[in-house]
């Protein structure tokens, strides 16, 4: 079966010749018409529409957006804040970059609609520090929108006012975690907060109710308000509505970003038909389906079980290539759809070295407040680096696994899981490579690609 056609609703104008990121171009293409329509509606109706659309957050967790909005404490009398999470930092993910650089007004319109729907008077776009150009583009776009009375006081004469400011991060991955992000926006170290009992929807920024949404999610909100929830749910599959943007990197012929109706494309179609398959003379070995913390899949393994199709339970027996790329199917086979970052590795990659690279990342990025994560991620890095650069011992795989097993569930935020899942899954699926690495290493060419 060949791959379905791309359906670009969010990336409609990305890489379009002649399309620029200024407001005039956006307006020529029907820009801000949805905002004009939205401000004539009741905020609660807009919220209901988003809820009905089944939109799931595109930052990584796939949490239902409408439900997140319904948790907001609207009775406290405190201001409600909206934060755009533009701290795109999960390795393998690079979709929000293109929205912000090439189509920033789409994000601003989606943000303003979401602010109006939630009675937000102040929004912040938290953009990662490594995107200085993106920050400048957004600031310019906001100024343009302000000049046209689309952001700022008394928007379009409705009496509704809302301001947006851009806030730059400074190179810390943990700022993508929403409570870490809030701490960072308050001017502190980005140490995530303990939750429950209090979630940002009740006590967030400045101890006020706060919504944190990913860049792409807010663009989907714009599309939903434009076309209605009924039209939106026609795209994709039940429970996985709308489109998904996949960011494919690593060893394929055509890496890049591809937008498809959610749940309609399999891993095999994406990698072989869309991305052109493996590089000449190589074969696929492994793939990480949803950003570097997602559990790795090994080509050749099979996933069996029962799944719900409509009202019935059906048996499935999938190879990696057969797995549908939606949140639920990927969760079912023990990995995750996450942020849509697909990292492909072919037969030239040694898995011990690839894991050592990932472990170095997580050890660098642990915020350090929980001992199991701070120490555990460091030891995983030290052990895997030693295997590559020093002596590798047959028992190292078991040692790595024992460290990884002691982290998840014992930390304040999900970083504990994120840093241990790679080690756990690499060792579960490539155990022989870890056990035999000391011998294998002697035979590896000295001039090979360095990964750590």
């Amino acid at each position: 079966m060949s791959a379905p056609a791309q359906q670009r609703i969010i990336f409609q104008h990305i890489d379009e010749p002649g399309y620029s990121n200024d407001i005039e171009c956006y307006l020529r293409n029907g820009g801000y018409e949805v905002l004009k329509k939205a401000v004539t509606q009741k905020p609660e109706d807009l919220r209901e529409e988003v809820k009905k659309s089944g939109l799931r957050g595109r930052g990584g967790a796939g949490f239902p957006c409408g439900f997140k909005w319904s948790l907001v404490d609207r009775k406290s009398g405190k201001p409600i804040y909206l934060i755009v999470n533009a701290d795109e930092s999960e390795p393998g993910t690079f979709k929000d970059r293109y929205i912000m650089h090439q189509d920033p007004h789409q994000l601003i319109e989606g943000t303003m609609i979401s602010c109006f729907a939630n009675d937000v008077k102040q929004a912040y776009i938290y953009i990662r520090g490594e995107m200085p150009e993106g920050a400048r583009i957004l600031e310019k776009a906001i100024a343009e929108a302000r000049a046209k009375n689309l952001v700022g006081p008394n928007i379009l004469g409705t009496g509704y006012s809302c301001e947006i400011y851009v806030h730059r991060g400074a190179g810390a991955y943990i700022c993508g975690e929403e409570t870490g992000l809030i701490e960072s926006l308050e001017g502190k170290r980005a140490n995530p907060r303990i939750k429950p009992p209090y979630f940002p929807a009740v006590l967030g920024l400045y101890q006020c109710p706060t919504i944190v949404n990913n860049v792409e999610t807010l663009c989907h909100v714009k599309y939903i308000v434009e076309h209605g929830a009924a039209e939106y749910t026609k795209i994709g599959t039940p429970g996985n509505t709308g489109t998904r943007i996949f960011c494919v990197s690593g060893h394929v012929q055509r890496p890049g970003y591809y937008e498809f109706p959610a749940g309609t494309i399999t891993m095999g179609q994406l990698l072989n038909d869309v991305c052109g398959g493996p590089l000449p003379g190589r074969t696929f070995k492994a793939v990480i389906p949803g950003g570097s913390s997602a559990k790795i899949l090994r080509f050749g393994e099979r996933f069996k079980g029962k799944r719900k199709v409509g009202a019935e339970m059906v048996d499935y027996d999938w190879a990696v290539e057969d797995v549908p790329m939606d949140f639920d199917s990927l969760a079912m086979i023990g990995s995750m759809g996450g942020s849509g970052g697909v990292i492909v590795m072919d037969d030239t990659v040694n898995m011990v070295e690839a894991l050592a690279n990932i472990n170095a990342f997580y050890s660098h990025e642990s915020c350090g407040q929980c001992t199991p994560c701070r120490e555990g991620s460091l030891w995983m890095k030290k052990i895997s680096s030693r295997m590559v650069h020093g002596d590798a011992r047959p028992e190292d795989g078991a040692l790595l696994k024992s460290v990884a097993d002691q982290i998840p569930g014992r930390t304040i935020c999900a970083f504990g899981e994120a840093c241990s899942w790679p080690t756990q899954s690499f060792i579960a699926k490539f155990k022989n490579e870890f056990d035999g690495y000391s011998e294998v290493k002697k035979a590896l060419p000295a001039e090979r690609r360095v990964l750590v």
Partner: protein
Amino acid sequence: MNLKPETFQRIDEVITHYPTKRSATLPLLHLIQEDAGHISDEAITWIAQKLELQPINVLEVVTFYPMFRRAPIGRRHIKVCRTLSCALSGGYKTCETFEKEFCTHRGEISPDGEVTIEFVECLASCGTAPVVLIDETLHEKVDVTKAKQLSDQIKAEAAVRK
């Protein structure tokens, strides 16, 4: 604090973006680092006074975020992405090429004072790996040949200045 007049202006403006002054810590650090090149002890006390904080509140932020530095660097800042997708596409070779071209090692200032080369974690452009951020400009698919070209360009610009 010895800063450009427009930096002071931007500092005063950015503080108004937030209901609490402390939130302006990161923006102020960015503005001062862009102006002065690094964050000195004097800058830390100055920001603390400006935002009505203790100096430790600023210092702990500086030491937490990788982008803030306590010492000067070379004229140009070359940040090579180290993370998986870039490494799979030869990121380590790219970094070594820059090191050779400028006779320096990552983390140090090159002998001519021209560059500081650094390995950084994921720059979120994995589809065009390996990527390199030079000052504020992202360069994509930087293989050995392109790394040499970029190095030549930096050297040529340095020669013009001299």
